[in-house]
């Protein structure tokens, strides 16, 4: 061991030299400098399946905007880091993009755990971050814009529709961390509000891949609807195992299809009879969606699938452009928030019209109900236009008045 240390000890010096060089090279800001956007997404590791498209969505939007002359005459420049599905990397890179790279806004994060890992750093360093991901809801933080769909958008549409069609007995299986726990709470509340009954609820630790017992528990409870809020590739094994055991309960989900395009990756018919509410997937059959998809496939011909988060990331760049232009070219957070507070920051996205709600700084969405059939083909039995992220505002989060920088849940709403 000992003889190796001298070589190793040069590394810190080398790193210090590089850092010094980088800081010397940074010029003073000028008016025509590019607008820098930090992109922290998982291009490797556990979540890479669902998140590579997010980076591409931002690249596509930035290229289009630059080709059309940029934002208020300034080009967009992307600073992209691979966060490797690792929460520590999020914290490390978030400090780096805000302090060293001095980006104007950051687009970051897939899992709720990673978002909660970096959010305090954004708050502390007064950054401005876009979380372009579907999640369990509740973040009331003036430093954050959320373009992903939230439970009130996905469940208040999906669950009443499914209960009307299949029956009122509901069973939930969910990943055992903040996303699954809070989403399950949403399911519970919405089922109760609509006169249904919870006949079971099971939380599965992340990384569990064997589901025989769970499948049997579900059979025992005989639900009409099974809500699957499973996350990650290990838990995804559930569907194959349930199909092999011939479990035929209609499934509802807020996470499958729209993020990990499981209907393409899994062998049919393991996802047959699954219903998902999503604000975009590449099967959405509208002129704006088709035009978007054509541009995408031209730029990234090897993209396996254009998912919900890819579209969210793409439209987030356009929302940012809209805000900066309305603020007369300013990228200061205070100016942008004044624009948001006016309440009419909207863009025509591939999914349809998307606006930012000034109270929660979350986005309104067109919600598509996607049905997966035996052959894993997608159809859309129903579409809801302009579904608002209503819950936070109703519960008492009003970012135009105060900024609590907190995450709330239905059982722990903002204090008046």
């Amino acid at each position, binding site marked *: 061991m000992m003889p190796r240390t001298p070589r190793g000890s040069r590394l810190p010096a080398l790193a210090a030299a590089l850092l010094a060089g980088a800081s010397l090279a940074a010029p003073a800001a000028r008016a025509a400098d590019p607008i820098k956007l930090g992109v922290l997404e998982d291009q490797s590791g556990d979540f890479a399946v669902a998140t590579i498209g997010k980076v591409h969505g931002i690249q596509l939007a930035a290229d289009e905007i630059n080709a059309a002359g940029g934002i208020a005459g300034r080009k967009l420049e992307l600073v992209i880091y691979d966060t490797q599905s690792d929460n520590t990397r999020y914290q490390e890179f978030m400090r780096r993009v805000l302090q060293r790279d001095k980006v104007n806004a950051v687009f970051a994060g897939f899992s709720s755990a990673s978002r909660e890992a970096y959010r305090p750093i954004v708050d502390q360093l007064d950054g401005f971050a876009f979380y372009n991901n579907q999640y369990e809801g509740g973040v009331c933080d003036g430093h954050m814009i959320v373009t992903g769909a939230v439970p009130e958008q996905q469940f208040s549409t999906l669950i009443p529709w499914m209960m009307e069609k299949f029956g009122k007995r509901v069973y939930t299986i969910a990943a055992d961390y903040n996303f699954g726990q809070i989403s399950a709470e949403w399911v519970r509340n919405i089922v109760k509000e609509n006169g249904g009954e919870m006949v079971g609820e099971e939380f599965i630790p992340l990384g569990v891949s064997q589901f025989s017992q769970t499948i049997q528990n579900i059979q025992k409870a005989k639900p009409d609807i099974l809500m699957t809020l499973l996350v990650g590739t290990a838990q995804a094994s559930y569907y194959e195992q349930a*199909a092999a*055991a*011939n479990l035929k309960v209609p499934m509802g989900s807020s996470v499958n299809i729209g993020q990990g395009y499981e209907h393409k990756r899994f062998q049919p018919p393991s996802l047959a009879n699954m219903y998902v509410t999503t604000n975009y997937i590449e099967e959405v059959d509208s002129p704006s969606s088709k035009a978007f998809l054509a541009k995408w496939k031209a730029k990234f011909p090897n993209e396996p699938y254009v998912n919900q988060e890819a579209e969210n990331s793409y439209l987030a760049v356009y929302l940012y452009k809209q805000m900066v232009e309305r603020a007369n070219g300013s990228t200061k957070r205070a100016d942008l928030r004044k624009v948001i507070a006016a309440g009419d920051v909207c863009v025509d996205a591939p999914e349809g019209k998307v606006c930012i709600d000034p109270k929660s700084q979350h986005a309104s969405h067109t919600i598509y109900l996607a049905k997966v059939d035996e052959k894993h083909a997608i159809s859309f039995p129903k579409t809801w236009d302009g579904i608002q992220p209503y819950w936070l505002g109703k519960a008492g989060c009003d970012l135009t008045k105060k900024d609590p920088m907190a995450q709330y849940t239905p059982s722990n709403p903002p204090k008046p």
Partner: protein
Amino acid sequence: MDLLTHAFTFLYQIGDAFSFLVLSACGLAVVFGMMGVINLAHGELIMCGAYVTAATTRAGLPLPLGILAGALAAGAVGMVMERLVIRHLYGRPLDTIVATWGISLAATQGTLILLGSSMPGIGTPLGSFTVGGYSYSTYRVVLMVAAVAVLAGLYLAFNATRFGTLARATIQVPHMAEALGVDTRTVYALTFGLGAALAGLAGGLYAPTMTIVPTMGTTFIMEAFVTVVVGGADIFLGTAPAALVLGTVRALLTTWQGQLFGQIGLLVAVILVIRVLPRGISGLILRERA
């Protein structure tokens, strides 16, 4: 719902947990028990078996041959690993931990870079059967049979073949075996290859039931280590009874309180066993015998 259905349900769950533990752990047990090498890349050898099985099956090979191909491929990878890395680290268990962990990281990320973040599945064959209102996957029964067959096969390999005799001789007193003309390097290489092939077999057998991704090895390795630690160094006196005990613990707790308690139960069992029986179940049996 009568008693018979309850009994079947419970036995099926124990069998399911037992087969998963045995198949995950036996490759690790061979390598650790016989060679004292702690192989943290065991999960990646399982992943290798699953990938090869999925790829060959999708290319048109029947599933049983695909699983065999997965086992052979993982075995070959294991032999290469032994030749390049493990061979230089015999008798240094701590160093093998670091080296194999490095191999594990490199294998996971390498697979991700070369083959992408996931591979299309191959579907579970054989359909389902029904007992008293519950439906079960038939393939799970195949997995249980496979677990028992693997144990029987290993017993024969170590007790009824020349390789088995040489391997046991080499493991017991290496320098004496060498003095008697045994090529211990080859025996070590073959034993490591066997452990790797068993890992590949587990991956191949579970490939039709799981999502095939570069990180899939991690879902096996915790169970594998728990089983080997509880079992101790001997496969037949250790791994098999440990898998039975832990399978029962897991089935009981999961039925009672859900998956989380099943996992907690496994870890608590390990803590209790290493406190009471530092050499595992086989250590206890062998001490009493001696």
